[in-house]
């Protein structure tokens, strides 16, 4: 049951709004007041306000959560049943954990993400964990979340894995990438698996994870096979030979164009200019790939030594055509 909004807060807000709606009139004095968690929650619950205001409320909750008694916030969070408020309060709790090195609040949110009977609330709790330390403080949580019966929960979990890898770890963290691959392997949802492996950097994955990616090449879904192929292009140098062999073996038996294009890209990424002889062979093997291979060849001819720049220039060359 939703908690009743603060009547005093709403009345104050309405008075202020009606005075301001005249577009001018006497100056209103804003004044500093004690921060009240229930008042902030009431304002958030009202649903009113511009995007800027809602961002402000979310930021205030996150910042203030670090200074409030944690149990008070956890109790509010546990009792909340509006998905938007679950997400806001959950993000505040998780954010407070990240500020204070204490994972208790984070655990409360993680528990709800896993156990709330309502899938909308589970999904909200998962969103609340985005860009927090959840990935390294909740062990196998994400492996479970990608197996959730609710597609919405699975989607939010996949988004968390991709964004956390990219934005917290900048793609450089082995355990974070391994956790993402583990989730992709564990899920029965090929779309989710494809999103995860396509969205993460595999530069620091472990050998078992690289093997897991090779395993995904056997998926019945072409989109997942393509995503796994692309991911194999980014594995560490120690996994390069095995990755290349698996990609070429897949090329021999898989005639799906999207998959083959992904294999071409992966081959380029593994060897840069060294891939040119192989590219020439693949071009002969499948003339459908001519345009794509020519674009990669042209990009490689620039002699760039960073994948991000090679991709950028390849896209620029392709867009010009």
């Amino acid at each position, binding site marked *: 049951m939703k908690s009743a909004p603060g009547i005093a807060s709403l009345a104050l807000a309405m008075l202020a709004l009606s005075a301001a709606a005249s577009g001018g009139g006497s*100056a209103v004095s804003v004044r500093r007041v004690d921060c009240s968690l229930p008042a902030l929650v009431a304002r958030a619950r009202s649903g009113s306000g511009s995007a*800027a205001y809602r961002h402000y409320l979310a930021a205030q909750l996150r*910042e203030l959560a670090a200074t409030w008694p944690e149990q008070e916030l956890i109790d509010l969070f546990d009792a909340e049943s509006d998905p938007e408020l679950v997400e806001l309060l959950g993000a505040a709790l998780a954010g407070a954990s990240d500020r204070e090195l204490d*994972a208790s609040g984070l655990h409360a949110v993680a528990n709800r993400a896993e156990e709330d009977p309502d899938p909308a609330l589970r999904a909200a709790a998962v969103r609340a964990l985005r860009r927090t330390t959840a990935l*390294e403080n909740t062990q196998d949580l994400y492996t479970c*979340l990608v197996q959730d019966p609710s597609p919405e929960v699975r989607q939010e979990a996949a988004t968390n894995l991709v964004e956390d890898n990219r934005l917290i770890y900048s793609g450089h963290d082995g355990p974070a990438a391994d956790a993402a691959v583990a989730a992709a392997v564990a899920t029965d949802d090929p779309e989710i698996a494809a999103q995860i492996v396509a969205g993460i950097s595999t530069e620091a994955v472990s050998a078992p994870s690289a093997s897991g990616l090779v395993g995904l090449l056997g998926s019945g879904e072409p989109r997942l096979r393509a995503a796994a192929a692309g991911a194999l292009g980014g594995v560490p140098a120690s996994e390069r030979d095995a990755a290349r062999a698996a990609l070429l073996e897949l090329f021999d038996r898989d005639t799906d164009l999207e998959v083959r294009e992904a294999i071409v890209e992966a081959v380029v990424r593994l*060897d840069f200019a060294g891939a040119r002889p192989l590219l020439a062979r693949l071009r002969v093997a499948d003339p459908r790939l001519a345009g794509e291979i020519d674009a990669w060849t042209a990009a490689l001819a620039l002699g760039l030594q960073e994948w991000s720049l090679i991709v950028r220039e390849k896209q620029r060359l392709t867009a010009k055509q």
Partner: protein
Amino acid sequence: MGTNTRWYGAIALGALIAVAAATGICTAGAARDREDRTTAVTRPAARFGAASPRATDEEAGTPACWAGVEELEAPGLSLAHFRDVVAPLLASGDPLVRAYLEERLTELVGADQGRALELLGWVKDAADEPLVALALAALEQSEAVQAPDVAAALLALGQDDAISSDRRALVIAALETQHRLSPAAAGDLAALAVDPGSGDAGWMAARTLGRVMHEDFQRTGTVAPYLDRLVDIGQNAAAPNVRVAALEMPMVAEVLLDRRSARRQAAILTADPDPLVRELAAHNLSLAADKDRVLSVYARAFDAESDLCVRWALFRFAARAVGARALPVMARMAERDRRFGDLYQQFADIYASGVVDFERVWLSLPSDDPFACLAREEEDS
């Protein structure tokens, strides 16, 4: 720069999946059987590990709350009314409310050129510096700033000597989100940057040129008109900080240098008296199109260079320029300067292991600052 070794939850991939299948480790869905939501959530501490010590309140910082701020959410709010309300909020220094005010004011301006020009009126007339800064920050992020009349008005104001250099700098900065600059506008900014009397406005003009170059480059691939001007500033500006800012900007946009641009950077590399400027030129040259030429430029420059940190720049950016093909040149550099012997071996070993991407080569080095060029400190006051 070693690998991460923590994570008590890191489990081998195969074992994880096997354990999950065998023991039903995922409890997702089990709670659906419970009817009472208030007891549905459990917190088995052992599952998620022990807590760490908490930081102090001083370390956490102290955000604020404000009664009356909802005034700014009124429909049909005029900019004049907005201005009436915000002064104490700005004076407080509260970063969260400041961010809200900027975003809200950006919303209020939107694509409305009239409102954008009204904000510019504040900039001309207001004595309140925080208000001026807020107005320009909001303008910079608005859709209206892309309108030619608004951009032209900003540029004109930025060159108005009747306004302080500080305020002109803020005005110039509001142009940084422009999708492109006309040749005339770019020329005006470049002239401002090299003007010895321009102060902060000149520095900002150099940075703005660079940031719009980045914008235009990302959208259209256009870079040459800006790059030329930035190099002009890098060579001709009187103030050292302006020259450095101008030469830093290609690094941010990662522009590829054509032959002409590369020649100009090479001239800076070999002739500028400031080692920092030479280091920037070495960095920028690593994306020159003519790889063979830039490699020989690096080799010659290394021989002639006396500054260790510039030599380190030449050494590492040779690898960024051409990859493993640079190793013979790097070997000769190491013969010339024995301090680079171990470094050469590190690069050679990394390339031999199969790494091809320079970003990964960089991350694989045992140290990204082998000569403490980044950690140099001289004084504190």
